[in-house]
């Protein structure tokens, strides 16, 4: 039992997670807007839809709603081509060394995708 407890506490001690997905606890309160070019298109695989855009010299990981919800917002794979310019709004990671944003809204040309409509 001592071994068990020490194993659990070891795992807990090193877990100060930055919440890559599953939560907004690691994100800023304020909403940030970014405009950049798509370097990796929308993916509806995995726990959340994702996309990568380049802003200046930085590649940003955009995390959107879960796949089904993102698709329901109209944003499907292949709609936004690589190289396209997009404007996005969301809450960026508290750790500014990580270019990661929980994305609420995506605008591509005249198309607008409210992937987290309840957070706007």
């Amino acid at each position, binding site marked *: *039992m001592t*071994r*068990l407890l020490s*194993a*659990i506490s*070891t*795992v*807990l001690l*090193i*877990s100060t*997670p*930055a*919440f*890559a*997905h*599953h*939560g907004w606890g690691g994100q800023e309160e304020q909403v940030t807007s970014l405009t950049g070019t798509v370097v990796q298109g929308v*993916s*509806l*695989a*995995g*726990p959340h839809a*994702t996309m990568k855009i380049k802003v200046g010299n930085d590649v940003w990981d955009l995390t959107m709603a*879960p*796949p*089904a919800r*993102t*698709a329901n917002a109209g944003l499907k794979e292949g709609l936004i081509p690589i190289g396209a310019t997009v404007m996005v709004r969301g809450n960026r990671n508290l750790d500014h060394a990580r270019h990661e944003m929980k994305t609420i809204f995506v605008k591509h040309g005249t198309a607008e995708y409210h992937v987290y409509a309840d957070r706007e």
Partner: protein
Amino acid sequence: MTLLPFGTHFGAPFLRWLEHSQLGVFTRSLGVWSYGIINLVHILGIVMLFGAILLLDLRLLGAWRSIPLAAISRPATTVAMTGFCVAVLSGVPMLTVKSSDYIGNPFLLIKFPAIALALVNVWLVHRSPAWAAHKVRDLTRREQMRLAAGAALSLTFWLTAITAGRMIGYW
């Protein structure tokens, strides 16, 4: 992550290869609910694995002595092995979906060694004379201690694996 005996980018080439493998391409093509469903199957596998192991290990550690050990060990072993297979068969495709996301994730590097240790422990317990003996007769005090030690290690390794596995998504 200085606690780990290797760099955080350990396994990066393998994870990149895994993401671009045929299985990764296939898993990503399965539709918007596929990840959630595969995740569900993975959880069911872990439930079977750990639920059965917990019963057996607690019995080996001294709980429910009135129930013959062999009456618990046979169904528990079958359910746990089935659960492990279900967890592996669902876990591998889940890992391929966005493998490169896990580069630098320390929990992945805790989880898999913990599973390896757990499996070595299973192998050592199952080849021990005490394990063979419990199927045909009552165990001596010494044999009971041997299996109890295996049970304590089993709980330690599997709980570490499950905890680290759950934390992967929160890194």
